C-alpha cells in the first residue's frame, strides 16, 4: 500500500558531515558494489569502459563552491556533497506510486521499492526533489538507496559490518548511521550539537537524513595551530616510547 504509514518511533537514516567529506567517492563505489549483488536487481553498468557508459547509482557525490565576499576579498571553499535517498517522513515518491511497489516501512521508516511490482513508470523519480531515484536502464525498475536493509539486520555479518556499505567504507568517518527517532542516539546528538539541516525544507518532505554543515572558518587574524607544539606536548607511548628510550640510552 502506498499510503504512508503512521510515523514510526524508529527512524533509521544517515547523518553526513560536510565538514569532513573529501569527495573520494569510496561510498559511491562501495554502495554500487554491495547493492549490485544484494537487494533486488543488479545495478546496470553498461559500456563501462566505452565512450558513453550508462548505469544506475544509488549514491552520488557532487561538489559545490561556497563563496563569501566579492572581488579580491572573495574567499571560496569546496564542499563535497554526497546525496542519496533521505528516507523522508512525508515521502512523495511513496504516495504517487500507482502500484504499491514504492513503500515506507512502518517499523523503521526505510523507503523501499518492491521490484517485482514496479512497472517502471518513473513517476516516483519525478516526485522526488532530491534526485534520489534512478530507473535502471537494463532492468526497467526503479532503483534507490535501501539503507542497506540487507546488511543492517544481517546476523550473518560481523556486528561492525551491520551498517550501510557507504558508512562502513567511508575512510574519513564523514557518514554516520543510526536512529534519528531517538533523541539520545549518537546521530541525534551529533545533529543537535552541529546544527544538522534538512535539504530543501520548502518541499515539506521532512527528510530523516541530516547534513552537518561545514564548521566556521578560522578568522584571518587567528594564529595557525602549531603542529610542532602539539606534537611535542605529547609524551610518547608504546613503540615510540621504546624508540625514545632506546635512542636516549644510545646517546
Amino acid at each position, binding site marked *: 500500500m502506498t499510503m504512508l504509514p503512521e510515523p514510526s518511533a524508529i527512524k533509521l537514516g544517515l547523518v553526513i558531515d560536510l565538514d569532513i567529506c573529501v569527495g573520494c567517492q569510496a561510498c559511491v563505489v562501495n554502495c554500487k558494489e554491495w547493492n549490485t549483488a544484494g537487494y533486488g536487481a543488479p545495478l546496470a553498468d553498461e559500456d563501462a569502459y566505452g565512450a558513453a557508459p550508462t548505469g544506475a547509482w544509488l549514491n552520488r557525490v557532487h561538489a*559545490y563552491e561556497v563563496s*563569501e565576499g566579492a572581488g579580491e576579498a572573495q574567499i571560496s571553499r569546496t564542499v563535497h556533497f554526497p546525496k542519496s535517498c533521505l528516507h523522508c517522513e512525508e515521502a512523495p515518491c511513496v504516495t504517487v506510486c500507482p502500484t504499491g511497489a514504492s513503500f515506507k516501512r512502518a517499523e523503521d521508516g526505510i523507503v523501499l521499492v518492491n521490484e517485482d511490482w514496479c512497472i517502471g513508470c518513473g513517476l516516483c523519480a*519525478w516526485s522526488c526533489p532530491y534526485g534520489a531515484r534512478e530507473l535502471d536502464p537494463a532492468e526497467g525498475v526503479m532503483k534507490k538507496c535501501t539503507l542497506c536493509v540487507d546488511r543492517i539486520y544481517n546476523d550473518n555479518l560481523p556486528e561492525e559490518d551491520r551498517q550501510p556499505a557507504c558508512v562502513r567504507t567511508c575512510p574519513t568517518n564523514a557518514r554516520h548511521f543510526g536512529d534519528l527517532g531517538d533523541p539520545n542516539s549518537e546521530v541525534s546528538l551529533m545533529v543537535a550539537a552541529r546544527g544538522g539541516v534538512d535539504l530543501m525544507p520548502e518541499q515539506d518532505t521532512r527528510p530523516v537524513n541530516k547534513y552537518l554543515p561545514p564548521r566556521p572558518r578560522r578568522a584571518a587574524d587567528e594564529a595557525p595551530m602549531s603542529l610542532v607544539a602539539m606534537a611535542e606536548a605529547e609524551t610518547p607511548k608504546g613503540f615510540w616510547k621504546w624508540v625514545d628510550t632506546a635512542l636516549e640510552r644510545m646517546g
Partner: protein
Amino acid sequence: MRPAWSIIFFTTMSGLGLGLAGWIVIGLLPLMTQQAVIGVGVVTLALIGAGLISSTFHLGHPERAWRALSQWRSSWLSREGVLAVIVMAGLAGWFAAGYSGTAVPIWANLLLLVLIYLTVYATSMIYASLKTVARWYHPLTPICYLMFAAAGGLLVTLAMLALLGLPITAALAQAGIVLMLSAWGVKFAWWRLAGMAKHAGSVESATGLGHLGTVRPLMPPHTEENYLQHEMGFVVARKHADKLRIFAIALGGVLPIIVLFVAPASAAALGFAVLSHVAGMFVERWLFFAEAKHVVTLYYEGAA
C-alpha cells in the same frame, strides 16, 4: 522534463476521446442508426483506448501495468487508470444500449459525464500534484486539460455531425468557437502565470549551505549524463519555445476557429480542423513537458 511521445499521444488522444464522449452522453450527437452507433462508438473508444495503451509504452514493465489500478487511495496515476477503465466500460454499455435501442436514464448519462471529466481531471493531476515541477504545480493546470477536452471534444462532435449528415446549428458552431477561444485563453493565462512559476528553493536551500555564502555547482558527480539529467533536465528546443507556441496556437486554435466561422457544415473542412487541432495539441503537450523544469536541476545547474 523529457517529452515522451507515448505520454504526449496518451494525454492528447484520451483527452480528445473523453471530450467527445462527454458531448455524446449528453445527447449532442444523435445516433439514429445502428451503423452510426457502431462507427461513433468505435472512434470514441479507440481514441480513449489508444491513448491509454500508448501510455504503457514508456513503462519499464508494461506487462505489469494492471498493478497500476491498485493505489487509487493515494496516487493520481492510479486514479486515472481506474476511472478510465470504468468510463470505457460505461461507454461500451452506453453504446450497446444505443445499438439495441434501449433508453439510457438521465442519471446514468449524468454519472457518465461526471466520470468522464473526473478522468480528465485525474490525468491533469498526475502532473499538477508534483510539487517538484513548479510550472505544473498550479491550479490552472487541470483547468487547461479540462477546457481542451471540452473544446477539442466539441470540435470532433461537430465533425461527426457533419459526417453523419446531421444539421449543425449556428448556436452549436458558435459554442465551438467560444469554447476553443476560452480553452486557449486559459492556456495563455497558464503560460503567463504557471509558466513563470519558480521553485521556492535555491541551490543554497538544496545544499543547506546558504548560511556560508553563495553556492555554485563545481563538479558533477559523474562524467556522463545520468537518468536524472536525461529525464528532468531536458533543454533541447526550449530556446524555440516562442515559435512553437505560435505553431500550437495557430494549428490548435486559430485554424479550427476559422473553419468553424467559414464552413461549419462541411465535413471535409471540419475533419481538417480536427487534424489541425490535434497537431496543435501535440505541440502544446510537447511544450508542457519540454519547458517544465524539475527542482532537482538545482543540484546540477544551480538553477531550476
